[in-house]
């Protein structure tokens, strides 16, 4: 034998790799913070970056309009971008693992379409829920249908002998069903309602308020620790369902709770900001390229990547067309897809 023994080399190499992944997570976090600051600083009324920073740190030191712009418009908007990005990315990452399919995401498996259908019911047919304040009626409808769509997947997963392929096909069938139903409602909608519905489904951060932020933050805070706690089990699941079960993992249970988290995260996000299709699919892929599939790193990296991309997309939505605010759902796809394709094609040179 020549060279150091594998044992002497492997454990330090593994420790080194873990440190590198922590560094990548920190880097993603820093990128996200920078993007967030730029997002807060960007807008039709020009506020210099250091005014923004002092305005956040010391609100009293700011004049009235500046304070309103930063605290009532820019901050909720920018924080919503970060939270929605992280939530959709975590939902997508969990779905891809649990369903063992790289194409799984809240968007591709019907959650967004279901939310659109709920929104269409509220907007066009004027459906309303008892005990729900008027301003929350639309998100409540979107949430109920988005949540319900994942519950349908869940119910199907609970039937004995349902494979993950069946689940994915069922999710795709949901997309087409809800899209057709939305089209049907659009067909009978008044012009004004139609306009509102189309705008809603494009996805926009402009509906952010501190209350909605609070709700989404609460959902994320409640679900993320459980997702991280399941990370080794999800890592093992990547190597095959029978194998994972043979390690003592109840895959049915893991899948049930994971889909429950996914439904909460995705439904809440989509209810508040509308359809944003790209993040939940792509952020996990970027995370996988950066840190591999040890889910202790993969899940947080997905969240940070999702938050950073969403934040950058938000900046772009305000700056691409001067004076106009593009719906962010459009921007994520237009900017994100070429970026993502570039990543995929350069991937072969990775370590």
């Amino acid at each position: 034998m020549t060279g150091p023994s594998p044992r002497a080399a492997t454990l330090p190499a593994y420790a080194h790799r873990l440190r590198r992944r922590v560094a990548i997570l920190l880097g993603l976090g820093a990128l996200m913070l920078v993007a967030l600051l730029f997002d807060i600083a960007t807008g039709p009324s020009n506020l210099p970056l250091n005014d923004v920073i002092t305005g956040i740190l010391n609100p009293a030191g700011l004049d009235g309009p500046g304070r309103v712009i930063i605290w009532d418009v820019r901050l909720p908007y920018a924080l919503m971008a970060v939270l929605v990005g992280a939530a959709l990315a975590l939902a997508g990452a969990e779905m891809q693992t649990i369903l063992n399919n790289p194409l799984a995401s809240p968007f591709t498996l019907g959650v967004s379409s279901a939310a659109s259908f709920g929104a269409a019911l509220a907007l066009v047919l004027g459906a309303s829920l008892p005990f729900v304040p008027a301003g929350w009626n639309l998100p409540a409808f979107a949430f109920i249908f988005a949540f319900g769509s994942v519950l349908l997947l869940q119910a199907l997963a609970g039937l004995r002998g349902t494979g993950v392929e069946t689940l994915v096909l069922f999710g795709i069938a949901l997309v087409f069903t809800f899209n057709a139903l939305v089209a049907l409602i659009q067909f009978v909608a008044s012009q004004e309602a139609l306009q509102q519905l189309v705008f809603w489904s494009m996805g926009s951060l402009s509906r952010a308020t501190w209350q909605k932020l609070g709700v989404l933050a609460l959902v994320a805070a409640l679900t993320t620790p459980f997702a991280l706690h399941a990370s080794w089990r999800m890592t093992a699941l990547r190597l095959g369902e029978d194998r994972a079960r043979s390690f003592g993992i109840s895959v049915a249970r893991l899948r049930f709770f994971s889909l429950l988290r996914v439904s909460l995260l995705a439904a809440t996000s989509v209810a508040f900001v509308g359809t944003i299709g790209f993040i939940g699919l792509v952020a996990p892929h970027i995370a996988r390229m950066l840190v591999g599939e040890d889910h202790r790193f993969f899940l947080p990296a997905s969240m940070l990547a999702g938050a950073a991309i969403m934040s950058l997309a938000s900046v772009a939505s305000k700056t691409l067309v001067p004076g106009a605010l593009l719906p962010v759902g459009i921007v994520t796809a237009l900017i994100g897809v070429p970026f993502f394709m570039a990543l995929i094609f350069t991937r072969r040179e990775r370590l």
Partner: protein
Amino acid sequence: MAPMLTIEGLSVFYGRRAILENLSVPALTGGSVTALIGPNGAGKTTLLRALAGLVPAAGSIRLDDVELTRLTIAGHARFVTYMPQALPQRVALTVFEATLSALMSSREGGLSAGGLSSGEAQARALRTLERLGIGDLAMRGLDELSGGQRQLASLAQSIVREPTVLLLDEPTSALDIHHQMRVMQLVEELARERAIIVVIVLHDIAQAARFARRIVVLEQGRIAADGSPGEAITPETLARVYRVEARVEHCARGFLQVIVDRAV
């Protein structure tokens, strides 16, 4: 004392179709390898999966005093590990991480893999890889390995758990001759060393005869023959079960050789 695994009246149904029907196998004893052979669709994999608690089964599977069929999936995993025939997918995990996950995932599930710390788990994973002769693959990703290398990684995931009952479903199907021999030798060594029960599904009858002390021949969910290689592998059994005309001869070293002349 060596552990004993007893199967009594075991039935497994897929829908209404019985894959295994009222199957009983006299006690399998720890310390040596038992090979499970039989034609395609005989129920070999189903039997292994039933032993691993992966398919609902009626009847009794007893490991010493423990009735395995009454255990949860997590309870099962304390005694039994099953290596599926399918190779692990090409995922972005290194061989070392994959092996580690076999230990860490059940630790996290609330049952300790022997109260293992993460450092101990790492050391044990690495020892396993070295013993399999793939220590140099430890930091390579499963997505950059050949099929044979992934099969070795898959085997590492199973033996690292140090189970009492090790169930291997065609563990050598993707390997070259050197690695086939190496794996079979290692499995036999492990069985002796740890006095564990090893049940291994093989297609190569000569290989089964070479390494197993006991051979169970399965045919359409029933036992067609059971005994030492000499008892279980006879021209008559081969003709009946596999529908081939074959000669069974002893080579210069005394191992059974099967020469198949033609299908009948």
